[in-house]
């Protein structure tokens, strides 16, 4: 019974034998063909099928329909336009990533464009100024310029002088503290615009120990605070105020006019 069924299936398969001599992936069909191969009936069937298939391939394609699949147009690849490329999600993602990286790089470059020796410390001190309260300082009511003697006499800090531009300002308080690198820093709070002054050691060359000098006043910004920094005798002075450059400019231009 099983044999009969198998033979019937073989017969069915040989009736459906492929016309072209293409590689057969189907094992059952390969087996059916190998059994039928050589018999006159199967040879006639194959010749018959090939002849019909040849005739089918001669069916003309009307011009209106042939336009849709002309071979010369099928093979060349479609041109890659810029628009298409830009719409590609991968290209889009890479472009955005590159733009962000470039933006960060430009921002960093721009923010460090006006860097000077001691700018890192000055920036940290602007952060200190932002978080400071007057009660945290020793109350002192005098002119800022006179405090250099106090710093020298009480703390042994030489050349911690307030520049002439800010020497006349009335103070509210002052203190001397050490930063995270054990550098001694003097801080003065003045009544004028709730301004704060910082005096700290200027940056030195790590090999030679020579003070790295810079001329005039340099501006620095951090979290809405602005500092004007100058260096004199190896000590940097910074006037810090919540605001912009112009809030400090008028004090500095006054001194220039004088």
């Amino acid at each position, binding site marked *: 019974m099983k044999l009969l069924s198998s033979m019937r299936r073989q017969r069915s398969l040989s009736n*459906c034998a492929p*016309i072209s001599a293409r590689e057969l992936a189907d094992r059952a069909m390969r087996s059916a063909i190998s059994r039928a191969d050589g018999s006159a009936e199967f040879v006639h069937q194959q010749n018959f099928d090939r*002849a019909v298939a040849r*005739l*089918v391939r001669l069916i003309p394609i009307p011009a209106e329909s042939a336009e849709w699949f002309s071979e010369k147009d099928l093979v060349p690849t479609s041109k890659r336009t810029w628009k298409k490329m830009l719409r590609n999600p991968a290209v889009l993602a890479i472009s955005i990533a590159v733009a962000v990286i470039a933006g960060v790089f430009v921002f960093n470059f721009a923010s460090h464009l006006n860097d000077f020796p001691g700018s890192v410390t000055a920036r940290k001190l602007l952060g200190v100024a932002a978080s400071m309260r007057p009660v945290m300082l020793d109350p002192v009511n005098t002119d800022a310029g006179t405090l250099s003697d106090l710093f020298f006499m009480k703390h042994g800090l030489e050349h911690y002088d307030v520049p002439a531009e800010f020497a006349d300002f009335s103070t509210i308080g002052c203190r001397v503290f050490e930063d995270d690198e054990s550098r001694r820093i003097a801080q003065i709070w003045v009544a004028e615009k709730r301004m704060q002054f910082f005096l700290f050691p200027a940056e030195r060359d790590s090999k030679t120990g020579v003070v790295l000098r810079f001329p005039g006043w340099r501006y620095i910004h951090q979290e809405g605070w602005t500092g004007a920094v100058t260096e004199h005798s190896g000590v940097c002075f910074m006037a810090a105020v919540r605001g912009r450059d112009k809030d400090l400019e008028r004090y500095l231009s006054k001194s220039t006019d004088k």
Partner: protein
Amino acid sequence: MQTILSGKRTAPAGLPAPLDTRKVRELFRGPSSVPDRKQNLPQLYRFCFLMLGDSRKAQEVFHTTLREAAQRAARGELPGEPFWLFRDARWRCLEATKSDLQPESLEMDEHDVASEAASQIQRLDPTQLAIWISAAPDPQRSALALFYLDEFDYREILDLAELKLSELSLFLANGRRQLQAWLDAKFPQPTEV
């Protein structure tokens, strides 16, 4: 979508508006711009012609199938299954002939396939063959059209025509014998003395 459907050329009377050839070619081009065997458009037209036996009707079904496919592609709804264009075209062919006169289920003459069948077939015109196949009742018509396209293996034909192996085998064997009888009637062989 407008660009796909609006062709620059004018369609012949009775035919659907032409599609944008470039768009359609892009749609049915296989991966890496290699034409996909499964969506072979010339074979699709020949299939329509074998199913309908009439060039105008075949073109109409062919164009409608492609237009529908283009619209589905524009909506991102192209089926993932292979040969869907052929399956779609088959149903359209069956739909197109539903209102036509249907062939009666008569006992047709059947002859064994002869050794000289190939030479008889060579004398045929492709249109005559298409008319003969299109006159067969479905699903034999679909089986013969799909088989003689020489595009699909038997498993693919079983899937497309929704047949069992025994049915396909019977339709093909009967088809050969019936076509042989028709060939013998059309081109009688000189009787041997």
